[in-house]
């Protein structure tokens, strides 16, 4: 298995190189540059040329690409034009924010959805199942940004239970206070995110549980007199987790994707907003860095999913 992982990692190298060239070319193909629409009306062409040269935007794409690669191997992803600071520092700051929120949301989602899925499957066709299915369909069909706007309005502004903007209070000081304030700020977006993203897990789990309920090994266990509680805990639950495990790898590496809606409405500085803004500002260094990171994460996600799957299901072995 370790050999396979190593081989998969090696294959990723050319994939990443091709990805980086594509990203670089596509970014340059977009109309405009980081200075479009923001140059002083009194600047003359010489000054504009000076700015382009100083920012390494003057040569042909391959020389710009080469410079970028050389810098990359020195751990330097360049400076963001929009934010005027090193890309690594910028992304590190945003990634931390995004990770906190996404991790909390993911854990909460699983905490809500797993029991719901099992419960719905166990009581198939009865009232609890209907209620749960109704709940998942409703949450699935309402656009997420609508939920966020309504949520921030009711719980943030009207009731005033939660902070409505940012990732931390400016008055927080000391590590305990800081962690507390951060947690307080991710509570509302995290809870709303979790409550409204359960549909996949609940539905997959429910149908797996229903399948498993009628399988031979469960019938055998029942006939041996194993208590229902134990059947669900030891037999059905683990087997039903397979499809969820299949995308667990993506869920983990996807933690850094960020949510554009949540970040916009809660003014929460995270990765999603950074990505969108860097595109509209033609912040090339940030765009290329982010796409590269996302690309690598996706490749890792696939690998991770395979590994998790093999751990959960002993029948599956990576060869």
């Amino acid at each position, binding site marked *: 298995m370790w050999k396979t992982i190593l081989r998969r990692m090696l294959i990723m190298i050319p994939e990443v190189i091709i990805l980086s060239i594509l990203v670089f070319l596509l970014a340059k193909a977009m109309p405009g540059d980081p200075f479009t*629409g923001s*140059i002083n009306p009194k600047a*003359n062409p010489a000054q504009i040329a000076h700015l382009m040269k100083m920012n390494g935007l003057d040569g042909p794409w391959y020389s710009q690409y080469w410079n970028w690669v050389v810098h990359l191997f020195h751990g330097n992803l360049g400076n963001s034009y929009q934010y*005027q600071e090193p890309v690594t520092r910028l992304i590190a700051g945003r990634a931390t924010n995004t990770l906190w929120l996404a991790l909390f949301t993911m854990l909460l989602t699983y905490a809500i959805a797993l029991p719901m899925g099992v419960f719905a499957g166990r009581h198939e066709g009865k009232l609890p199942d209907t209620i749960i299915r109704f709940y998942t369909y409703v949450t699935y069909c309402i656009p997420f940004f609508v939920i966020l706007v309504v949520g921030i309005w009711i719980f943030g502004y009207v009731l005033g239970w939660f902070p409505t903007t940012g990732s931390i209070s400016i*008055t927080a000081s000391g590590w305990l206070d800081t962690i507390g304030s951060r947690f307080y700020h991710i509570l509302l977006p995290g809870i709303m995110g979790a409550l409204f993203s359960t549909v996949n897990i609940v539905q997959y789990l429910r149908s797996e549980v229903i399948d498993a309920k009628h399988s031979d090994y469960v019938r055998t266990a029942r006939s041996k007199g194993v208590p229902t509680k134990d059947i669900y805990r030891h037999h059905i639950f683990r087997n039903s987790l397979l499809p969820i495990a299949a995308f667990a790898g993506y869920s983990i590496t996807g933690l850094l994707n960020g949510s554009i809606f949540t970040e916009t409405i809660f*003014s929460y500085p995270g990765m999603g907003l950074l990505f969108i803004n860097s595109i509209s500002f033609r912040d090339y260094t940030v765009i290329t860095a982010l796409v590269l990171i996302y690309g690598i994460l996706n490749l890792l996600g696939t690998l991770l999913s395979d590994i998790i799957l093999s751990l959960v299901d002993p029948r599956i072995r990576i060869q």
Partner: protein
Amino acid sequence: MNKKKLVLSAVAVLAVIGLAGCSSKSSSSNSSGEKGASLKLPDHYTNTKATDKAATRNGTLHVAEPADAPFAGIGDPNLMQNNEDNDVFAPGAAAPGNINDLFIADKNNKIIDGGLANQRLDRKNNTVTITLRKGAKWSNGSPITAKDIEYTYEVIGNKDSTSQNYTADMANIKGMAAYHAGTAKTISGITYPDGETGRSVVIHCTKMTPAMKFVGNNFIAETVEPYDYIKNVPIGKLAASPQVRKNPLFTGPYKLDKIVPGESTSWSKNPYYYGKKAQIKNIVITVVSSNNIDKAIQSGKYDFTSPAGVMHGTDYKELKNLKNYKIVGQPELGYGYFGFNVGQFDTKTGKNVIDPNSKMANKSLRKAMMYAVNTDAVTKKFSYGMSWRANTLIPPIFDNYWDSSAKGFPLNIKKANKLLDDAGYKKKGKWRAQPNGKPLTIYFGAMTGTSAQAATYQDYLQQWHKIGLNVKFATGKTMEMNSFYTTLQAPKQNKIDIYNAAWAVSSEPTPTMYTETSVQNLGHFATAKNTQLINDMNSNKAWNDSYRAKIFKEWQAYMNEEAYVAPDSFSYTWAPVNTRVKGYSLKSSNVDFWSSLSLTSSSMK
């Protein structure tokens, strides 16, 4: 009071000047500025309640900065590149938009004595002498020196600088061009009569210009940089340094206590400030998504939105009737406009040239199109009074220069039709053809924006169709901002014939973007008369204020007559102000905006 610098170029249409530039407060008297606007906004809020001393002494003023992205967090006026930074660092200046400014100005933006420094222009010797007030200090207590004045020029002009503020105008200072090119280590034209630690500098220029009398000109920089504090940081790395991002120094009534990158800043009284002392204990400025800024204000969480923050007409509709908030505003330093593509930029000579055979070279056609659009109705419907039809290309905030009597282009379909008929644009079937008989299709360039903007554009098209002109969107739909400007900034293009955009302008309004040599002259018009008028604005005779005002008015009349660029709309910069705030005034006479503020209650409800 005034404002400052230049401000960058155009940005989205209809007054959203959010992308770039340091806009800010500016001068206007209450009565004259808003002429033309159907809605009159007060430029101050008179709170008759008594100041609650305890609430003021111990309280926090909460300011909301409406924005959809985290701010960049560059606490240096010469390196920051957008409005948001200017807003969140505003309490470091006496008035919003004047971070680390040397001068104060009167209501016509003319520099007057009494600020951090005074300025003397010596037209005989071509020198500008700037003298700091005695005992001026930075917010960390260290003295402000002559070197701090000079260092601004180094920060802007250094060859590695990330500042976008260097302009051709600055090369007017002797030795500046050589320093900018990197061939000289110092700027030879800036000298220190009493040493670098003294109080004054003398700036030697190749020529003097009347623009130097006003804040916002590009000849003389108007800020100080804390040289001692930042001298060890290479200028190219300054914008990323902790001296500028974490603990920047200021000269105003408040000092920065803490910054959460991209989210908020908090301020307390600066004990070293030379002017009127701050009254409120703390100020906190927080970014609030413009998607829920209305809800944030309605819930009583903020005392006001940033005085220069971007608020829309739809926000006004939601907030105007709130019991515990008053709406305060003043005309914006900028305007929306229509431009026509009539020529090209000759890259060899560096000049714009009109092509007399181009589609839009006919004055009657341009004017007919302007008379056909119904700006009065469109602004009324979509901005709720926050924008109105512009009558000239100088915003009304410039009391002295704005020509209030200019008619502009009110809706007049009959006149539009007549202009076209007389010029030979005869109907051939559904549409009018060119005078030479060839079919005429006009391509309209517009930037993608809000749904209100989309509806506005549709109305323009509909109006042009009414007078028989076959006008279509360039590229078939509205254009993303970058594509829009990339297309227009090409030396020669035939994709866009008429376009709609906006300029943010400097508090010194010489329209340099319309000169013969400007690369920002997107329609490429250049006429002898226009060049003459723009030169006259800063000729020797223009040292006389009334002559200068006369030339500005002549230029406005000329532009309306030729319609190479035509006015579209003016707008308010406005904010909801909580009724517990006392002393909120955008009046030009109020040079102490932040330190004038106090609270009349500890609660915003």
